[in-house]
């Protein structure tokens, strides 16, 4: 149990660092809200190695901390909506079985974008954002795949982390 708490701390720190690194990369694809989601590597790792509960906790802690440190009130709401929906989709697919880490991560990437879009629609009270859906779906798929490949490689090398 003590080991789990320690690991959770390490993963929280790692997720925060990834969030910070991401703010340093000036990604602008002409589409609002599109980013790599590096911290999601850690979320996937925790989901596979520590469990669903821990992954949820880390998601919320990560969003709140990085939001207060590098973002603002708005970025917290968007990230939270995206993060929770993304993790729910990933947990569901993982429990369902038959999906690889990449598949689970792809679902996470796509639903992260859907969650953010839903909040955007509520905030600006317009449906015209719905026209970002195809771009965000495909973008989420590719970033999810990349994150999945990275997480898969890390999982292979973190075999002793189960206790």
């Amino acid at each position, binding site marked *: 149990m003590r080991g789990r708490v320690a690991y959770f701390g390490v993963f929280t720190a790692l997720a925060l660092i990834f969030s910070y690194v991401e703010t340093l990369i000036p990604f602008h694809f002409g589409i609002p809200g599109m980013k790599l989601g590096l911290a999601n590597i850690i979320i996937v790792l925790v989901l596979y190695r520590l469990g669903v509960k821990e992954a949820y906790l880390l998601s919320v802690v990560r969003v709140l901390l990085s939001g207060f440190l590098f973002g*603002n009130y*708005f970025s917290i709401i968007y990230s939270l909506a995206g993060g929770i929906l993304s993790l729910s989709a990933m947990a569901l697919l993982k429990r369902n079985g038959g999906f690889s880490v990449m598949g689970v991560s*792809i679902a996470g990437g796509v639903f992260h974008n859907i969650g953010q879009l839903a909040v955007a629609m509520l905030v*600006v009270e317009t449906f*015209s*954002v719905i*026209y970002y859906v195809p771009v965000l779906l495909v973008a989420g798929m590719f970033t999810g795949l990349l994150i999945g490949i990275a997480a898969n490689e890390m999982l292979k090398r973190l075999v002793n982390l189960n206790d």
Partner: protein
Amino acid sequence: MDMKTGLKKKDWVLIMIIICVAWLTVLVHIFIGGKGANRVIVKIEGAIQDTYNLSKEGEYEINGGTNVLLIRNGKASMLEADCPDQLCVHQKPISLNRESIICLPNKVVVEIESGTSREFDAVTR
């Protein structure tokens, strides 16, 4: 299972579903959207604030000066915004029907609309 990529059968099914849904929404976009767009509509918190002509070039302060809208060469873009992330400023200029630029912190939406699509609008909203 494909050993080279490590992707399983269900992964491929998932990818196919995502691509299909994306294509479907693109088709819907093409079907509903299209040419003939000529108006730029500025909405604040969902309420229409101003309407500009897309063919008339100029810079306009909107939402009491928090954002500056630029209309040039039949395209609209956000020139300035006082928000920290500047996402709307980095967005590509828009010109097609129902395309939009959104500044979330200021709750500003800039939308392109054709003068003839009002009826459809009334039905869909």
